């Protein structure tokens, strides 16, 4: 952290003064700009080459215990006055239907700046070089006979944001997030099979071009193409009950859906009831409920290096911190914002974020990480399984609106027989109920297998917003899981 000079200091002060003068007890203003660069190739041609930028501001005002929010793309004095006044007017209108007052958890006054640590500045790799690299990756996939559609892409996202509040905070941040992936689609034998590398939808992290390099697309292109084609004629994954080993990237989505969303405090309090839903992990369960086996420890760590959600402060000025969510299998915490923390008497997690400058900040899954265990390799996780299935990379995911009943499908599976990896299996699926499933976890990979998998497109809120989260994990083993659902199981 260092000294900060807010890019829009005068404009921010004007917005806060206007909101205060109109009657806001508290207000904050966010100025922001984004630049998203995307390159995508498909079957040897460039399917998408785009460079999108956006800037503007938003004002959030609390008036007599009711929120109002307004935003605009136009940063001009008159528009700042209009939007600030509108935010207050919206809050006043909300008072007409008010049975509860919104209160805010105490916050400090922060005057600070933050920038994502970057090893390789993405601007040092030209668009032409990115295109050429992806075409090489694409060519490598298409060298595999039977690949119908080959795709590869690179995303580079720059975000600059300035936060100011009537409590005196002034925070300037510059974030860089990068991601890339390849995908091979094979069609034949009356079937369609798709494989992606790395992970479910790519490797997305905070950082510079080193994130793209770490994905090793070129090194894996041929293997992924071969797997997609082989899956067309692979045996169907069986139905029934089996011991299960999940890859780290599949674990990431399992954590996201059955722990991350379940422990967003706005859902727990019913603020998302109509759309994203609520949560089975109600407040009365805090500190007593067994969420999983005693090797399951999960933290929300907004300071985690490389993790996609890492930043210095969230969009209501709370510093990045680490909050325990599940310790030794017991539910011990939630992801809270200033208003929900006050309502539930818990601590803020620094996870209140908006899709961009013009959207309302809300609780979003941060870096919800499953702490590593002791298994040094996949082989060690397979050891002790007489008959089971190894599943890798998500293909479909579904969970009920209290985050209990889930069903996931993976891109690829392998039989595990007498502790060894066996034949290839297609269309593997598994299902369960959240607490029972996590209680069946009896081994987790160690630190050497732990990866900060990012999710770049988590949807929540009305109007819908997408957010970028992370669920770092190692591979893990689960016992007696229902498998093959969806294909007759």
């Amino acid at each position: 952290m260092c000294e900060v000079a807010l890019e829009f200091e005068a404009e921010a002060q004007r917005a806060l003064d206007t909101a205060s003068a109109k009657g806001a007890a508290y207000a904050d203003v966010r100025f922001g700009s984004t630049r998203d660069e995307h390159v995508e190739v498909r079957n040897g041609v460039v399917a998408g080459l785009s460079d999108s930028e956006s800037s503007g501001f938003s004002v959030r005002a609390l008036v007599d215990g009711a929120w109002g929010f307004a935003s605009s793309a136009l940063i001009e004095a008159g528009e700042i006055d209009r939007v600030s006044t509108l935010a207050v007017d919206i809050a006043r209108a909300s008072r007409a239907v008010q049975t509860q007052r919104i209160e805010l958890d105490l916050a400090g006054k922060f005057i600070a700046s933050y920038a994502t640590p970057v090893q390789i500045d993405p601007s040092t790799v030209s668009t032409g070089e990115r295109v050429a690299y992806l075409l090489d990756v694409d060519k490598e996939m298409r060298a595999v006979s039977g690949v119908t559609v080959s795709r590869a892409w690179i995303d580079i996202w720059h975000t600059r944001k300035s936060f100011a509040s009537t409590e005196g905070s002034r925070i300037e941040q510059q974030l860089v997030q990068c991601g890339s992936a390849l995908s091979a689609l094979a069609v034949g034998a009356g079937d369609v099979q798709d494989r992606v590398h790395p992970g479910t939808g790519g490797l997305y992290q905070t950082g510079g071009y080193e994130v793209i390099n770490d994905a090793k697309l070129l090194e894996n292109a041929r293997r992924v193409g071969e797997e997609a084609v082989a899956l067309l004629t692979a045996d169907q994954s069986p139905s029934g009950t089996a011991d299960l080993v999940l890859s780290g990237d599949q674990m990431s989505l399992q954590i996201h859906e059955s722990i991350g969303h379940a422990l967003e405090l706005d859902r727990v309090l019913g603020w998302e009831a109509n759309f994203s839903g609520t949560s089975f992990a109600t407040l009365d369960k805090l500190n007593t409920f067994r969420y999983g086996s005693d090797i399951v420890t999960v933290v929300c760590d907004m300071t985690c290096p490389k993790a996609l959600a890492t930043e210095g402060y969230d969009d209501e000025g709370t510093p990045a911190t680490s909050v325990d969510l599940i310790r030794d299998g017991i539910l011990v915490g939630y992801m809270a914002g200033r208003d929900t923390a006050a309502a539930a008497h818990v601590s803020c997690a620094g996870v209140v974020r908006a899709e961009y400058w013009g959207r309302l900040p809300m609780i979003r899954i941060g870096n919800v990480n499953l702490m590593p265990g002791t298994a040094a390799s996949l082989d060690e996780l397979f050891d002790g399984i007489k008959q089971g299935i190894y599943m890798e990379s998500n293909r479909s995911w579904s969970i009920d609106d209290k985050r209990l009943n889930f069903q996931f499908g993976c891109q690829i599976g392998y039989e595990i027989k007498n502790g060894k990896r066996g034949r290839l299996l297609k269309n593997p699926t598994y299902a369960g109920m959240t607490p029972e499933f996590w209680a069946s976890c009896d081994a987790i990979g160690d630190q050497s297998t732990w990866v900060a998998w990012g999710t770049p497109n988590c949807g929540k809120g009305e109007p819908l917003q997408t957010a970028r989260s992370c669920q770092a994990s190692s591979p893990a083993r689960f016992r007696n899981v229902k498998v093959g659902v969806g294909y007759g199981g």
Partner: protein
Amino acid sequence: MAVDFVTDDSAVQEALDSALRLSKADETEALVMGSEHALTRYTHNYIHESMVERNWQLSVRAAIGKRTGVASTNRLDAEGIASVVARAHEIASLAPEDADFPGLPDDATPCDDIPATYDEATAALPPQARADAVAQIVRVMRRHDIYAAGYVASRNDTIAVANSKGVRRTFRGSDSAINIKAIGETSSGYAEGYARRFTDLDPAALAEVAARKCVDGANPEVLSPGKYTAILEPAAFREFIGYLSWIAFGAQPLEQGSSFMSGKLGQKVMGDNVTIRDDFTQPQGLGMPFDFEGAPRWPVTLIERGVADDVVYDSYYAAKMHHVNTGHALPAPNAYGPLPLNLVVDPGVTSAAGLLAGVERGVLISRTWYIRLVDQQQTIITGMTRDGLFAIEDGRITHGLKNMRFNESIVEALGRCELASELVRSESHVLPAVRIEGFNFTSGTEF
């Protein structure tokens, strides 16, 4: 006076002109999308979030020979426009040639007009009007001693596109929506309404529907997994068939062979009673008469009395696959190809109430949740029911049920279905309720 690219048409046209004038590319397309979206959310019978978001974007597609690039910005002053035009040109110059790029569309003939797409009062709906609607909903809930969560929303959209080949289109539309989940101790109920004109919505009446479902569904019983006759109300049916837009009804999945329609055009794939169209002219719908590259949009019959008839196209796939351009392009660039955005399922002959008759033992599904694709070729999806699952016994709704997970093939299910006679809008689609025999529930949950 601040420039506003949502409501000021002359400013929008000026931005398009400026982009086309400044571009040095062989062909140039400029697309302005402006919107003001207002939405008030409530839960526990009070408003907890309320907002107005105003933003716009100018997207410029530059073509140099068969190389294309796209850049976009929301800075629409002279400097911002010059910059985005230059970036689009630079990006295009870096792109390899795409031999299949046919050039930008040049069909500048007038489009069919759709009446009543814009209502000024809805476009400018004040926050107090949204709050008043919430108050009406809350009054109904209190009368039933329950509470509600949901939203009241309105929006104002401008979409304008022009290109260097003489195409120029502008569309303005308003829209509004009310969404209600009534919540009791052991049950919940759902209702929704959509209309271009906010005054066409009746918050209290919708609230009564949601509340009645919640009250009637109290103390839900457990349903054993298995196959049941299921009636999906329009909101549930919309989510059930919505996946077909992405995986089957566009030219891209047809071409790559991943659509269930691939190799089956002209063949029977569903029941004789099923006709599915994409029809922007449907009066209840949310249609627009041209696509995002300015091509005139045409109604397309996708499934004609159970037979796979056609899919939708944009200029790229129309040229590549030697088909007429149906005008279904998304904003460039997009990874999905052309998509149908206004599905219409033709009605049946039995009233929605009549679908119940003759159901000896079945279920009624008010709403679904978290539907995901399990198998693309077989169109198997999984998802959960929510906010109103009811038992049907001897043609009558008898009691609430705890929610269930289903795994079902969309196409196979539409081979054993009966459609209701009333068409209802759900989001951007218009469709009836449907009764499906042998609907496959695979597990249940605790509520």
